[in-house]
């Protein structure tokens, strides 16, 4: 049995040229710009933890403590110094743990295998004492 393969004539293709360098630099600038946008956001008042698109809990960032939830087995969320981080997780990667602590709206910690997403919500309406659900 013979397999037919097609070869490309790539002799003319260069490693890099001026036009492409410009394109890449532009892309870098755009990406860096997007990177700095969250940093301008306010420090949030509370962290929202979601399982899928359902909010599981809202945790105030003012009080230090550890939290666990039945939806996320093996995960521990820790609040300290006005920021929240994942200190323990049952996932294989531990990407969520390596994200570090977040405290501003726009910042996120995500654990895909556990379907957990932590976001920060700012205090626009936290002059409310309670919310009835």
């Amino acid at each position, binding site marked *: 049995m013979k397999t037919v393969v097609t070869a490309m004539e790539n002799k003319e293709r260069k490693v890099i040229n001026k036009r492409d360098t410009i394109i890449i630099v532009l892309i870098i600038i755009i990406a860096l710009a997007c990177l700095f946008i969250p940093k301008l956001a306010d420090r949030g008042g509370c962290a929202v933890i979601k399982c899928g698109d359902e909010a599981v809990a809202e945790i105030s960032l003012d009080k230090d403590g550890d939290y666990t939830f039945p939806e996320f087995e093996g995960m521990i969320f820790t609040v300290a110094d006005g920021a929240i981080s994942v200190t323990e997780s049952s996932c294989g990667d531990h990407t969520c743990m390596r994200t570090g602590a977040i405290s501003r709206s726009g910042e996120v910690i995500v654990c895909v295998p556990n379907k957990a997403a932590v976001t920060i919500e700012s205090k626009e309406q936290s002059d409310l004492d309670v*919310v009835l659900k």
Partner: protein
Amino acid sequence: MANFRFSRITAAVSALFMLTSCGKTDSIAENSDFLFDTYSHMIICGSNSEETMKALTQIHADLDASFKLCYTTEAIKLPNDEAYSDCTAITNELADKYGTGINIACGELTELWGISTTDPTVPTERDILETLTKIPDDNSYTETTMLDFGAVAKGYACDKAYELLTTTETDYATVSLGSSTLLYGEKPNGKFRAGVTNPDKENSYLGIIETDAAFISTSGGYERFFEADGKRYSHILDMETGYPVETDLTSVTVIVPAETADGGIMSDFLSTLIYIQGTAQLDKWLAYEEFEVIAADENGVVYSDCSGFILDENSGYSYGK
């Protein structure tokens, strides 16, 4: 999976703000927990607030254990439970005064529907009728009756919180148990502000209530329900039919002044009862002076006799009447 939503607790004011608003010699205690099948959040501001918080947490934990996670249990298991008899007695008084429709002896029906479990199902007509016959009409129960205090448990817990707080030197406190809350005492810089969830939009408000100390409870079909065959079944059961309530109201909120005796269970009881009865009976309820009502119906209309209620313009609802 049960549609589990925790209340949006926004009472997390920054520590600095709290310190300035509480008073120099006072302290603030804050606690969050899973109680009564929901996310609860409490703030106590006053002398020895930490101790008060500990006592309150203990009381609530005991109550929670009594009422159990899905509020159904056999009376035989805790025959002398004071919470049961107390709660039942008050519920009966309320029923006498305001009308029947809430029945704490309906545990078997709740279990039949399995609403609080992860796998609710629609029972057969025959099963429903059979179960209905077993349930006594008048909130009475024997040792073998299955009880369900779901309609009143949180309100009752708020009452117990109130009782505790009156024995302490607490300036103000907020006790939030999801659909029932207690706003106690007096805030130094104004009235309490309570948000009412928009039944149609998650994480959005129907409006804000500005009020002095009060018990506030909300009932609605949007919070916990399950879907089967394309139909949505709410978790509130109609005792007449045995089926989940079909009403043209989407949300009912009842505000009872804090000084009212058993105001908590009253607000919880009434919010459920008014919800069940629909817009047809609203005039009657709006006429009562001892409590205030905010009701939203499925046509986007809001009825309210609450002077402190501020409707949110973006809620999609507008005033009727």
